[in-house]
């Protein structure tokens, strides 16, 4: 699925350069459930951005199913984001003015899915996360857990090859957190590749493979037998 070689990402911030990722090499196979832990500022989100084709590395390469995301054009990256990657954010990132149904449909806009099919697929995706009856609600009318489910439905509706989640439970209480983790686990069981960032060990432990990033370098917490 992912082939990451000597990946480095530096940011220029207030005259200093910050090495958010420092020579990371990693493989992630199809169908894996990977959790990424680490301290705040360790580089977790930066890694997920590289995996999600949202930004380019400073050096090194990220290859996703044969596509080198390092050298691809902006247009190709947008295409990859639109078709291959499902992304779940810590803050849900729903469009506040659109209903749950419409929020899910936004994910099908770049692929130019026709309106009727788009609506049907969005309805199905919402039903699959247990919100079949909430399609007409605005985000503010939903609880945090429900909003994150809508966000997961939005990530899933395009039938992505990989689901990337950046602290998906970070803004949720404990009970809801478990619901969301179980939902993601279920998706993995159904064959989806899932990479989930969390600083919650209880959540991380449920993954079959656990990574830790600190100071921009990655270490395997599970026996590194899988590479």
């Amino acid at each position, binding site marked *: 699925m992912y082939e990451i070689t000597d990946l480095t990402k530096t940011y220029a911030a207030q005259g200093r350069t910050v090495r958010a990722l420092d020579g990371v090499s990693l493989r992630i196979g199809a169908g894996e459930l990977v959790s990424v832990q680490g301290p705040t500022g360790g580089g977790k*989100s930066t890694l*997920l*951005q590289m995996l*999600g084709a*949202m*930004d380019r590395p400073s050096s090194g390469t990220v290859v996703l199913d044969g596509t080198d995301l390092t050298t691809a054009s*902006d*247009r190709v990256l*947008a*295409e*990859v*984001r*639109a*078709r291959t*990657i499902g*992304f779940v*954010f*810590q*803050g849900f*990132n729903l*469009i*506040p*003015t*659109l209903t749950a149904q*419409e929020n899910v*449909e*936004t*994910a099908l*806009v*770049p*692929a130019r899915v026709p*309106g009727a099919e*788009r609506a049907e697929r969005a309805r199905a995706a919402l039903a699959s996360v247990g919100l079949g009856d909430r399609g007409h609600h605005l985000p503010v009318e939903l609880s945090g857990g429900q909003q994150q489910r809508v966000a997961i439905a*939005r990530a899933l509706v395009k039938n992505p090859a990989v689901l990337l989640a*950046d602290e998906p439970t970070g*803004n949720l209480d404990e009970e809801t957190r478990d619901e969301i983790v179980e939902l993601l686990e279920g998706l993995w069981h159904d064959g989806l590749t899932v990479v989930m960032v969390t600083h919650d060990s209880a959540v991380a432990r449920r993954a079959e493979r656990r990574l830790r990033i600190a100071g921009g370098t990655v270490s395997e917490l599970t026996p590194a037998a899988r590479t």
Partner: protein
Amino acid sequence: MFFTYLRRELRHRRRQTAVVAIGMAVAVALVMVVNSVSTGVSDAQDDVLDSVYGIGTDITVTQTGAPGDRAPGRFEVGAEDGEVGEDGSRAFAQNNVAVERGTASFDDDALTTVAQIDDVAATTGTLTLSSTTFSGEVPDTAALPEGADAGERGPGQGQGAAGGPDGAGGSAFSLDTFSVTGVDPGSDAVGPLTTVSLVDGRALGTDDSAAGDDGTPATVTVLDATYAASADLAVGDTVTVGDEDLEVIGTVGSTTGDGVATGSDAYVTLPLAQSLADLDGQLTDVYVQADSATAIDAVAEDISAALPEVTVSTQSDLASSVTGSLASASDLVSTLGLWLSVVVLVAAVGIAILLTVSGVTRRTRELGTLKALGWPGRRVVGQVAGESLVQGLLGGAVGLVLGLVAIAVVNALGITLSGTTGGFAIGGQERTGGGPGTGAAGGGPGAGAAGGGSGAGEAASGPFGNAVDQAAGAVDVVLHAPVSPTVVAIAIGIAVLGGLLAGIVGGARAARLRPAEALRSVA
């Protein structure tokens, strides 16, 4: 999705949408009104020019006279003049007719010369005169104190004779000035007669030019209906011009608009005008129509070359010579109106841009999320630009209605503009000669005065003011601001351009957003 999202977004920020739309609406309405009124004023100017110079006049030929030349208004009231009343006072009336001050007559050979120039389609010549009647009553000169001899006054010195100390036996003068234009009744292709239509009686005919056995012209005149009404004259009455009593055979109005005065107060045949003013074979104006608009400048140059003495004015020179409230309105519209529109327009577009940009900044995470979802950059930009465009169009629609209402109000007000053309010297220009309070002191030549028993300054405004009003041949035109397709197109164009401009600036902001912004600033 585009329209759903757009509608939701605009409804969500109703207040911002309203501010942008109202700003745009005010700007659109203002530009519409200014444009429409400006067209109306320009039309009014054309009307004034048409009623003074006639339709189709491209060029006029005149000659300026030295100031004071042929000054009308030299009245000499001798001790023996007039009729002696029972109390020994004398009533008198004197009439003077001459070309307008500041203009000079020229030989009618000029007409022939002009007619022979290439690309001249039509010509006609007129002789425009100013008739001034000075009438009044003086007390018995024998009863007056020394030095108050009423005789031998300087030209135009309308100084009122001093009355008795108690005002008894005071004198009163009045001055009546009106314009008389000598026209060729047979030549109505160009010139003042083209916009004149008969209201009452009959028009001047070619027969009138040489009616007498010895070829002398008939002593008849046609009056401007507006002037006739103000001077209380009707068909069948007589008016005195110079030494002649002329019979009023008809009244005329202007074809350029209701209640619009024609270019002259009175019309006579050219030969009669020439004989009245003792100016045989002389003209003051030649009206020229060119074959085509493009030939006007060349014809004007040819005339100047052939007749070096004369002043050659083209239609655009004439337009700039229109004075009076019309000219003020024109200035107001073209300066204040223009600047106001520009300022309001810039402010409206500025507000639209500012609010769009701040909206994009506020929605950084939202728009970044769309990019993270794989929305192409242009789709995000299009969404932002579309919102601004719709705000602009909303403003445009409101502004269009607002503008149409405002234009309707302007038209309903029935604003009357008065235009006087310089150079052509319509009566009333002499109004500068005096006003209330200065009349008794004697204005320039021709200025009237009333003195005597009543308070000199104030009394002067009575007969003097009337004299001016009657003499004022200024053409009144009711302002009509038209709603043309241009006005509507301008409104829609401004709305679209303003919205697009805001959309482009806001869109450019949105285009620079990276998808990674979606992960930033988690609330």
